């Protein structure tokens, strides 16, 4: 606040406006300063140490096979909100949806000995796991729903995952602003018993808004890792050469943490 405003003659209206302007001006300067600090690459690289420490510490102190809590049907959210992209809206996807995904196939490839090409009927016939879990969105809301599908580990073993593979990438049918959605997880989560490619939600085939015909459930991470509209699963040794190189749409475009364990 400038000194002038403090020694203004007692004219309430004008002093109010001046003081207010001084306050707003001061606030503007403060914000500009803060924004400059926030935009500094050095500051951002220091802050990212926190993310690395969190990832390392969570892997260190948690049992890698610990199961996320499973709930009963009575605990389920009355309505499970649809979030993110609710329809890929491409001609190709619309055609698949129109035919109830009878012509849809899932490709499992990359660093595997025997690439797989599976129809929805084959996935439905495969051994499955059903779990009622809590979906925790990065924004802060939570919803409990029932998911049923094929354990990812089963498919990866069937395909003969290479011992050099380090990540599993999920390529999706939806995109935002021209950028395709994709996500990736490490092998600890890929082989976790609750990590499934879900074909069903709350006892019924997935609806388009929730990612029909196939959605990833990786129960120990936040919502943006639960890729919808999965078309292709790819085993890779590194994430660097894929899209923006950070392992996911939100990671590449919005700076979200790749490890979404919190």
């Amino acid at each position, binding site marked *: 606040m400038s000194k002038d405003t403090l020694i203004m003659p007692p004219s309430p209206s004008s002093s109010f406006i001046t003081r207010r302007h001084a306050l707003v001006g001061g*606030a503007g300067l*403060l*914000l500009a300063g*803060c*924004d400059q600090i*926030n935009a500094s690459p050095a500051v*951002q690289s*220091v*802050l*990212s*140490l*926190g*993310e690395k*420490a*969190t990832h390392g510490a*969570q892997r260190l*102190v*948690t*049992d890698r096979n*610990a*199961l*996320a*809590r499973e*709930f009963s049907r009575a*605990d*389920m*959210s*009355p*309505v*499970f*909100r649809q979030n993110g992209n609710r329809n890929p809206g491409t001609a190709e996807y619309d055609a698949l949806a129109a035919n109830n995904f009878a012509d849809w196939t899932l490709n499992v490839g990359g660093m595997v000995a025997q690439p797989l090409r599976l129809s929805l009927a084959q996935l439905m016939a495969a051994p499955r796991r059903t779990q009622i879990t*809590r979906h*925790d*969105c*990065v*924004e*802060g*809301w*939570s*919803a*409990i729903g029932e998911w049923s599908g094929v354990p990812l580990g089963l498919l990866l073993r069937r395909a003969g995952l290479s011992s050099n593979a380090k990540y599993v990438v999920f390529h999706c049918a939806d995109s935002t602003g021209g950028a395709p959605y994709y996500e990736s997880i490490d092998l600890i989560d890929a082989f976790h018993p609750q990590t499934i490619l879900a074909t069903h939600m709350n006892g019924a085939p997935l609806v388009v808004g929730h990612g029909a015909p196939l959605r990833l459930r990786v*129960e*120990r*991470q*936040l919502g943006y890792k639960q890729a919808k509209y999965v078309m292709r699963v790819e085993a890779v040794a590194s994430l660097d050469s894929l899209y923006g190189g950070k392992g996911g749409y*939100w990671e590449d475009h*919005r*700076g*979200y*943490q790749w490890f979404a*364990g*919190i």
Partner: protein
Amino acid sequence: MATKFADGEAGGTTTNAQADDSPLIYRTKLPVRIWHWINAWSIFVMLMSGMMIFNAHPQLYWGQYGANLDHPWLVIGNRGTSGFLSVAGIEIPTTGFLGYAQNTANAFPPLVTIPSSYSLAGARQWHFFFAWVLLISATLFMIYNIVSGHLWRDLALNREERSIRHLWHDIKDHARLRFPTGDAARAYNPLQKIAYLGVLFVLIPVVILTGCTMSPTLNAAFPWLAEMFGGRPSARSIHFLCAAGFAAFIVVHLLAVLLAGPLNELRSIITGWYRLPKERVK
């Protein structure tokens, strides 16, 4: 730390003239001062980045689930350019402060958030870095408290201070803004001790534990964590209430510093040296 101790006699005249012959004592030890400033910085960053994280979903719930179509107990929102706060169904207009302020329809306005413009990802980077700073510094300080005896010697209330009569007396003194003087000012007063103990043993542990329940990975490994608070949405509500507790503590703390003599108090928390206020005339 030798201190010359002036006797308690005092005239009721100007305080400035007297201040010079009041004894200067070494009151705040180095570890306490270091922790105070590290903690102050991290709490500020945690509050400001936490408010931005809250902006991503400005609603709070009790129970095991909670999303847009459920029943929040607290909402900060806006209708056009009118901001409001709704608590347990009671709505308070807050335009200019919450919901809608600085021409921005965020729950908390740009002036008080990190970063200033909407960025959940950016706020999370700040929040998680300083969460580590807070966790490590609080743990080290807790060890120091116990090992050095600071906890029992300076923070714990003695038998006399624990009596209702004594506490009531201290409350009345605070209400009249009569702060301890002379010898009594060498130690923290009972309400001050309670406030510090509340931060150390309630707010900081609970805010850290509820913060951990935001992690689906930790919740899987340690199921009791979220259950202890009645579910993740409940824990998120408690996390927010702890943040409000920190904010309230900061307001009262800074007010007390201002009323008790800001320069003397600042010197004490920077250098450790504190000038005892002159004994009051009865």
